[in-house]
């Protein structure tokens, strides 16, 4: 991932920045479109699990686009990505663990 960065400094500023501007705008459009799709899909009469899966995939795509482009992880040293993903993975794992623990039968709240 450091290859593009080398290229960046080698080329002059201008053409690169023009392209970056375009990239940003395109991504913003893409994100907006995905959001629209997400909102729409909720009302589509598909199977629940399918919609949930689609929603998760779409959100993940948005997520990745933002961190890799807007937050330029794509152009930065990979260490930044690693650093962030340490947090992301541990937080995600903990969330998963908590949800799993609370979904177990033993953890259901007392019926009232």
């Amino acid at each position, binding site marked *: 991932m450091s290859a593009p960065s080398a290229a960046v*400094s080698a080329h002059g500023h201008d053409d690169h920045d023009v392209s970056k501007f375009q990239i940003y705008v395109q991504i*913003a459009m893409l994100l*907006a479109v995905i959001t629209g799709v997400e909102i729409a899909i*909720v009302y589509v009469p598909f199977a629940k699990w399918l919609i*949930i899966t689609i*929603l998760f995939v779409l959100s993940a795509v948005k997520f990745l686009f933002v961190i890799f482009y807007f937050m330029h992880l794509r152009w930065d040293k990979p260490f930044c990505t690693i650093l962030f993903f340490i*947090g992301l993975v541990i937080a*995600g794992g903990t969330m998963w663990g908590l949800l799993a623990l*609370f*979904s177990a039968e033993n953890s259901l709240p007392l019926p009232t």
Partner: protein
Amino acid sequence: MSSHAATATIDHHHDPSTTTGIPNKKLLMWAFLASDCMFFGALISTHLIYRLHPPAGGLDPKQVFSPELTSFSTFILLMSSLMMALAVTAIQKGNLKSLRWSLLTTIFFGLIFLGCQVYEFQHFVHDKKMTLSNSLLGSTFYTLTGTHGCHVAIGVLWLVLMYVRSFKVASSSSWLSHQLLHAITLIVVLLASLKVTLGLVHAIQVEPSLGVAFGHFLKAEFLFIAIGLLATGALVWFARPRGPVQFSEANAIDVESMGLYWHFVDIVWIVIFTVVYLLEFL
């Protein structure tokens, strides 16, 4: 600002002064964001756990949430992220003017988002009868989205400070008071426009016809519109050129790490939007 740095073009992806080449501030921000994942992880877990095991007789989120408003504010936040990204590119090119405009738009979008959120909370409390303390849904929802809102608010404050800083002149005997006043006027503008946005959203939501709504809005918010305009005038006056500015390409890293924070707030919202709002409408 060192003599070498200023003359050479700055490579924004490599800082030769650090061991790894990643600027300290950027690394700090990424480490903080890793930590922030855990903050929101804990909050979202809490919310989801109680959504998976809702207490009997609790509120039904379907009845409470309004997808239109949320979709709108989601969209706004996405656009603010775009503007933030552009602000970073601008300062990396040393384009101060473009930077300032991008910052202001980002601030503006952030404020609209906050306005929507304040409005949403008001609406939920007064019309949907969901309060912090009358249901678990209220407790977890307000705490989660409120924490996110605080992040946005801190981001806005930071943006404001950065905007003001971009006017810092190299030397002047009165620059401290000048800066303070500048910051204050900007904050006044912000508060006024927050209030005005709120009024606008409210008017539109309440009144079916747009024209009438606008009339109502103008009447109700006249004072704040006036204050906002006045302060904006002052702002422009403060922003007049006053000699060489001590804010340049070398400060790109400050803007960039602020940008990272802002984008992170955005991706947290992406998650919240899906798991807190959308999933409820299945």
